[in-house]
């Protein structure tokens, strides 16, 4: 099985990769990627099934918080059944999205405002090094530069410093991070293609 999975991974990877550089492989690349799209969808469903299984198990074992798990499972199954019957774009399903999913997520996101502020205020007490100091100074400048006054942009900071910091200084760091991430991604992909890493369960 190990060899088989490794062969599949490497062969598929090579064919998809060749599709980037040779027109002859574009067809096979599209076919393989189309299959991958379908299989990714199935994998997502399996993930959701796993969520059901975990919480059903919690309910069955009457673990602490089992009531919440029961709520979760009931809500999940009910929504799925309604979705199967009505389709996701149906108005009733839109009610679920606009009445529950969106408000909950957005409110959680809103609560992050206070948490972020609190954490930033206390940062320098815990860690007062060069990076933290520049972090706080930059954040203060961007806050000030992003706001406006009744008369318009905050002079100098809003019109000069903020764009300069965010478009030049931050650009250097962001580009460095992006290139670093890309290099890491490249190496990771190559290790998979060479069969050194087998995250699919081969090793």
């Amino acid at each position, binding site marked *: 099985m190990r060899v088989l999975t490794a062969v599949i991974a490497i062969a598929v990877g090579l064919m998809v990769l060749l599709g980037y550089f040779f027109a002859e492989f574009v067809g096979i690349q599209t076919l393989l990627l189309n299959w991958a799209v379908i299989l990714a969808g199935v994998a997502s469903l399996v993930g959701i099934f796993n969520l059901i299984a975990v919480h059903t198990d919690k309910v069955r074992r009457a673990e602490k918080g089992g009531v919440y798990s029961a709520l979760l499972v009931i809500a999940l199954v009910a929504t799925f059944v309604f979705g199967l019957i009505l389709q996701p774009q149906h108005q009733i399903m839109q009610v679920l999205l606009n009445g529950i999913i969106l408000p909950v997520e957005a409110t959680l996101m809103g609560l992050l*405002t206070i948490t972020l502020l609190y954490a930033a*205020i206390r940062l320098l007490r815990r860690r007062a090094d060069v990076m933290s100091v520049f972090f706080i100074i930059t954040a203060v400048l961007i806050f000030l530069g992003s706001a406006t006054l009744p008369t318009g942009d905050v002079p100098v900071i809003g019109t000069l410093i903020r764009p300069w910091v965010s*478009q030049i200084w931050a650009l250097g760091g962001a580009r460095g991070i992006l290139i670093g991430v890309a290099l890491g991604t490249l190496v990771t992909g190559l290790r998979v293609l060479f069969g050194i890493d087998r995250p699919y369960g081969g090793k």
Partner: protein
Amino acid sequence: MIFAQSENILAQPPSRGGQDDDVPSWLAGLQNESAPEKDELMDWARDVSEPQQPLKEEPPVFTPSQEDTPDWLKQMSAEAESKSQQVSSQPASDSQFDADTPDWLKQMSANAEPVEAKTPQDAPELNIDTPDWLSTLGGADDNTSSVEPAVFTESNVPEREAESLPPMDMPDWLKSSSEVEEEKPSQDTTTPLWLKPQVQSQEPELPAWLSSAEETVYPDQTKEEPAAQDDLLGDVPDWLKAAAPEKTIFDSQDELKSEVDASGGTDWFSAIQPSGETEVESNIEPEKVDPFASMPAFTPESQTDESLEGLFTEMPDWLSSASEQPSTSTPTPITNEDVLPSSNLPSWVEAMRPSDSGFSQLTSSASDQTLESRGALAGLHGVLPAVPGFTPTSKPKAYSLKLNASAEQLRHAGILEDILSAETSPVPIESFSTLLSSRALRWTLSFLMLAVVFSTVFLRTQIFSMPIGRPSEVSSVIQIAQSIPENAQLLVAFDYEPARAGEMEAAATPLFDNLLLLKHPRLTFISTNETGSVLAERFISGPLAVHNYQSGVTYSNLGYLPGGQLAIRAFAQNPSVISPFDILGQAAWTSPTLQGVTSLNQFTAMILITDNADAARVWVEQTQGLRGDIPFIVISSAQAAPMIQPYYDSGQVTGIVPGLYGGAIFEQHNAGRPGTARNYWDAYSIGMLIAMALLLSGGLWNLILGLREKREEK
């Protein structure tokens, strides 16, 4: 626990002058010390003392009533009872004894009888401390006691007296023992080797690792000679059975019986006697003190590679190496030739052989008259020694490890101790004042933000100016929006979470409102986020509802594409194959929206609405080279914009609308149409200013506090 207590009982000082002669001396100690704590022991002791009247009938050790006896004692007494039934029911009947006794035992008793005949003069003190019942024990008891003296009884029988026993009456190996003692009188002992580990094993306060080591060893021992041991026990006298490893002592009665019954006439033990007569004397060599020698696990014989391996399988390396060291430093116990090689003997028998290593453990001052009154050792003196320094049986093990550990091993042990102490040491809890202040700060922040946002939104204030300056990335978008032709085909990718719907809609609405109003583009929606396609529907039927766009006519929603990068690449490569239908199940690419479009670069422009910098990166990467020269606009959340900026700088992204700030700028160029950004802007500006003020002041304050704390720490 019970064993430990009984062990302590046995360790009590011998009889006192004032005590009744009928009461064994050890019982006095028992009553004095254990009575208040252990009623069980009291009862037990009472029961033991009661049978002194019917001594002639039965050995008193086995008389305790079954109801009052603890289970373990019942088991032991039952075991012993069976022996006594065999041996003592015809107390001094030599004839019957002869009939039932195996030959080798007869031989032993024959050897023993003269000893008994001569012992009276040797053991007047013994008789003082000996209960009557013991003196009434004839025949069989004599048999046991006759074999034992040199090995087990040390007590207060003077060595001289023991030595005065005629040599011909003693087994040869015993003789050799006494000779060794003669040579090394200071290395006297009261305990056989095998008994010490047994006593130690009963110690309840053993460290877990140590006890586990013992557990590991015993099976190995039995594994070495399992059959031999079982067979041997069949013919071995009862007292000797008790001398067998711990397991045998606690075996059930049935098991023992079956063993006895099943045992054949193994001659190995009798064979030892004659052979030993010639050789053993010279075999016994004085041994150096070995802290491990007293433990069966560390007897030389058990220290084979295999057993050691089994012993240390569950021990850390440093510990196993620590225990290896003493074993290597231990002098080989018996180097001379044995007639019966030690490897052929069971380990416990080997351990039982007189050896200086055992004797040397104890000082010559040890003199114990403790009389065993129960179990297989009943009637024997000083079998379990009461030497004061001997009682804390768990100590020697720890002591020996410390002694034999090298510096490196000690260092490792130190590290382990540090780790353990770090694990177990209490985590200092933040002081109350710190907790209070942090909670107060959190509450203050919550209240402040809620109050500010609520008041500004509720009052619909428009005090603060919209941003005036136009960053280049936003200016680019404005230019593109103006340059897009009428009725253009735009591809719009929705890749944001519902959490950011408020921000993304506020940022995207001005651009789309402007486009839909002025250019009437045909829109194609695609999403690589599960909720993206539904959010697209929400967007078109919410903020853009005034434009009355119709699915399948002016826009097509191709739905959700799972697979992330894979899906984006596949879609960019061949969109009509990957997403042939819209969410209504209609063929999308033949609809008016997508007529004439077969590939990505045939769209007029691509607009990505995302809250995720990674999503933007993936769209940029996977459409690179396939989107041709079409403009690529990213409407991003404020949080993703900094990481998309490099792609704008490199020209891969044509323009960016960063969050509410970008939306507010764009809104000012939207033909004066009001938008969401304006409604939010005052609250947004005040929120940013508050954040700036709090971060500056709070940051400075905490910086000072942090520096002060560091200075105090130093």
